[in-house]
């Protein structure tokens, strides 16, 4: 069976060693893409792929990207929540890859919520 090569994993392990572990809470921004049945059917996965690409291409180290389930606003999917540390979480609705790019540039990296794409401010439990 074709698998990942151990030497590639060892190389990454060496490169990553000593860098800050975002899961320990040392992140600046948490981005949560809603991945319920409704979100997936509406196009949540390309939104997540776009965000991962931007994080990866930009070498961004202080942004955590994760997913949550259905938030009960199925007709507004795809949705994501951007939580900048010490600021109110902002939910964005009816997303696509282009809107995700705008939000990433403006809010995640720029620190300013993209008001015209925001649905509401609020918090939720994730995971």
């Amino acid at each position: 069976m074709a698998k990942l090569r151990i030497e590639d994993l060892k190389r990454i392990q060496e490169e990553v060693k000593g860098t800050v572990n975002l899961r320990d809470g040392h992140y600046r921004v948490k981005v949560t893409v809603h991945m319920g049945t409704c979100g997936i059917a509406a196009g949540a996965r390309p939104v997540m792929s776009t965000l991962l690409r931007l994080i990866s291409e930009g070498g961004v180290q202080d942004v955590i990207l994760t997913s949550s389930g259905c938030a009960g606003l199925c007709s507004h999917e795809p949705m994501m929540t951007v939580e900048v540390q010490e600021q109110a979480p902002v939910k964005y609705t009816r997303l696509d890859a282009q809107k995700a790019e705008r939000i990433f540039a403006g809010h995640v990296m720029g620190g300013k919520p993209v008001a015209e794409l925001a649905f509401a401010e609020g918090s939720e439990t994730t995971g």
Partner: protein
Amino acid sequence: MEDLSLHILDIVENATAAGATLVEIRIEERSAEDRLELRVRDNGRGMDEAMVERVRDPFVTTRTTRRVGMGIPLLEQSAREAGGSLEIRSTPGRGTEVRALFRAGHIDRRPLGDLAETMIALLLGHPETDFVFEHAVDGRATGFDTREIREHLQGAPLTDPAVLGLIRELLGRPPGADGEADGGEDDG
């Protein structure tokens, strides 16, 4: 759902919502038998028989069972449209296995879609969960087990973009192809 990879993402989200710490995803294609089989097995909290019946029915799902909502009926519909069927085996406290069969060459069989993007979305969304993934076409297989990957990473995060990039490359090749010009090892 447009393709099977989106169904997989959805069904595995159910498994993680059921508290699974390990989810095994296996796709097996056998062209001689015109058959495509998808199996998702988890070690989550499982369901009793009444609950199994309930998750198959899109109309009686109540708000309290919301987290298993429409996903199973949609997958069953996709399987049936392609001359196949869906089966759920579950044991309370032990876990659940969802098995969907398709006639591979059926005109209404949805395409596989982007399996790499599905697995990457799952790894990002559930960094504490372990996944076994295997895709076999006529005996040639590609796969990974996050427990093995974690061992080699020695504490480096599985969600590092470099690791996810390797997974994308691996799953982007035809099953069984290991990306080495000389063929490399094959432990079948």
